[in-house]
């Protein structure tokens, strides 16, 4: 493979690290030609997830390798940042509220998973808006030094997004339960990435000064609970 091709692939992969996957979500009342194209394009992936929610990671991988979808998503991200981000964010939270309500009505609790997803997306949006260079530095460092994990992160975040969108189209409680189980599992994994990125952003280092405890009483004393 020519060097330029490798470079293009690396840039394209790295760009996916930066794209907030929630840019796929349609903002209420702002449907544009671009949004319609994105929705039409991802419809086939949603159908695949609904057929078998446990296959969501493979579907996310397919989506990540779909160059046209990635181009549309990148354009949509730029578009949503260009427009009023606060309005977009509120609409996104509204979308998640609808998702949670649908699960709740079926007796399924996905609140923990949704909290993690929001925390991740909120961190990503805040980093993008407040300190873009630091954010890009963290993502690039992770992408360059931990390529396998970076690719896994992409699969996890896009799989979660596909599950969220699919949940609204699920027709049976069984389908919804299977989606809920995948949501919980992948949100837990997403959280590991989120905490890692947060620590990287602040250049977290172990201090090295410890106090030991071997019993509840000693631990209580160390923590100042007594």
């Amino acid at each position, binding site marked *: 493979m020519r060097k330029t091709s490798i470079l293009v692939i690396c840039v394209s992969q790295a760009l996916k690290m930066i794209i907030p996957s929630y840019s796929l979500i349609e903002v209420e009342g702002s449907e544009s030609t671009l949004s319609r194209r994105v929705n039409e394009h991802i419809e086939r992936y949603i159908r695949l997830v609904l057929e078998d929610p446990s296959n969501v990671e493979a579907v996310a991988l397919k989506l990540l390798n779909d160059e046209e979808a990635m181009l549309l998503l990148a354009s949509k991200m730029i578009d949503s940042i260009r427009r009023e981000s606060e309005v977009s964010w509120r609409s996104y939270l509204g979308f998640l509220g609808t998702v949670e309500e649908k699960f709740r009505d079926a007796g399924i609790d996905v609140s923990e998973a949704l909290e993690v997803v929001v925390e991740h997306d909120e961190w990503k949006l805040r980093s993008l808006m407040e300190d873009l260079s630091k954010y890009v530095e963290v993502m690039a460092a992770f992408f360059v*030094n931990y390529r396998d994990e970076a690719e896994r992160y992409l699969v996890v975040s896009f799989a979660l997004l596909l599950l969220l969108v699919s949940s609204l189209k699920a027709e049976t409680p069984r389908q919804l339960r299977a989606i809920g189980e995948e949501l919980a599992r992948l949100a837990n994994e997403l959280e*590991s990435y989120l905490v890692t990125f947060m620590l990287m952003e602040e250049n977290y280092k172990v201090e090295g000064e410890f106090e*030991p405890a071997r019993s509840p009483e000693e631990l209580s004393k160390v923590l100042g609970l007594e």
Partner: protein
Amino acid sequence: MSEQFKHEALVENRFKKSFRNIDSEHKKLIFEKMKRLLNNEIQGEYLKGPYKGLKKVRVGKYRIIYSDHEPCRVIFYDVRPRESAYT
């Protein structure tokens, strides 16, 4: 004599400092979670990349960062608020 943990706890100063600023209800929950980790009753999940030796576990609105890769020892590094606006 009081009951001993299965593992020894090492609590970093940063953890102690963060813990001091937490409300009493969450302090209790965190203390209970630490006891369960020290008795090997639960396991957190590994972080990634440069922090892959560390683990995280959720406790209500907080998250404990710790490691258990040394035999018979659990090192508590920090306890941080989760930053989710979605409740």
